[in-house]
């Protein structure tokens, strides 16, 4: 139990947990928050907004949410995808369930930031490499209707490590999904800047 002295998460816990780079104290706080979120979902029913970073397997959440829409409307799931609609604030601003799809919250952005006024990705403020990202409405649409002009296909990762690793559950990667974020620049600038969304900070 030397881990306890060093403020590290015990190896046995890590073995059964989701990827996280947080030190022990904040790891535990984050863990409690996850359990609270899950318990509220179970006992109070579907939340207005889903805390994507709280899941073990967010990739599965994305598929399930799309499947819900496909089944309810008699559509083929493999013709559907999500449109990324970035909303105007953080979780406090969510007041009702969306008409279709799901609302998700709790993400961060590194290597860029969200400009609330221009409603697009912009360069970071000096000295702030990572910042909170607003709530996103994932709207199910037909894949053929997805417009990718003037958008940066921004990867969402679980942790700042970004790289995938094979886990015992067979889920192989840190990558969750692409979010299509509006930009007025050449999207390749954001690729070179390494701009990505993350589920959590390392602190």
């Amino acid at each position, binding site marked *: 139990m030397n881990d306890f002295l060093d403020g590290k998460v015990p190896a046995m816990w890590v073995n059964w947990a989701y990827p996280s780079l947080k030190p022990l104290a904040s790891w535990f706080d984050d863990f409690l928050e996850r359990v609270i979120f*899950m318990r509220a979902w179970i006992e109070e*029913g579907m939340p207005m907004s889903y805390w994507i970073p709280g899941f*073990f397997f967010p990739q599965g959440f994305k598929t399930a949410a799309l499947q819900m829409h496909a089944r309810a409307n008699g559509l083929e799931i493999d013709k559907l995808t999500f449109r990324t609609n970035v909303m105007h604030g953080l979780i406090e601003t969510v007041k009702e369930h969306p008409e279709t799809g799901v609302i998700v919250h709790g993400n961060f952005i590194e290597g860029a930031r969200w400009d609330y006024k221009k409603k697009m990705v912009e360069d970071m403020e000096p000295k*702030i490499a990572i910042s909170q990202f607003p709530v996103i409405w994932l709207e199910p649409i037909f894949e053929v209707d997805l417009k990718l002009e003037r958008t940066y296909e921004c990867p969402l990762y679980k942790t700042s490590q970004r790289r995938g690793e094979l886990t015992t559950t067979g889920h192989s990667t840190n990558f969750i999904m692409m979010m299509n974020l509006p930009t007025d620049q050449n999207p390749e600038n954001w690729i*070179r800047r390494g701009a990505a969304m993350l589920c959590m900070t390392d602190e």
Partner: protein
Amino acid sequence: MYESCDAKPREYKKMVFALAYFHAAILERRKYGAIGWNERYEWMNSDFQCSNAQLLLFLAEQPEVPYIALNYIVAQVNYGGRVTDDRDIRTMNSMLRKYFCPEVMNDNYKLSKLEMYYAPPEGTFEQLNEYLSGLPLDEDPEVFGLHSNANMIYENNVVKDFMGSVLLIQPRLAAGGAAKTPEQICRENAQAYSARVPANLNRETAHPDVFKFDDNGKPLALGVFLGQELERFNILLNCIRHSLV
């Protein structure tokens, strides 16, 4: 080498400079960790030499500079052969496209957001060296396409590594006297955490809508997902609870 293309000396000088810049930029990006590359790749001088040989060949054989073919062969085949992560391949292609493009033939075209980095106008090898020696030694991450904040990320990583090493070599034994032993501290920590471990998640107390079935008698997809997450949380909860006894 700089003078080795008789067919298109100006084009070659521009392109070989762009290639060298690309080589240096992708190697330097590794220093910044995951914001540079997801994985750390070991590119070698042979990747450069091979790309240079093909560049010479293409310029000698073809009437125009074949930018698309060169981008493909250098980014995807030569350097890309070592790249395993999908998102890194995308980054690699974007990096090279910035340098291997028709605009690079324009003497005013900049290779980064900074003014002083460009493929110099056609000249001698000595003139090239002169230009290079005028470049700053202390590079802004912008040189490699990254934002200046990347330096801060790099410094944070260095400090974290350093602190990790310091912790490793710290003595474990307390100095005696009234100080607590490591065992005592551990036990107290474990008790404090133990008291905070919540109860397991429970399907029995679920809201009626959560695990319900749709009109076709199938369980809701999000309910199935929730059920799987619930199992994983309970396994972790049990693990933590048992380890703190």
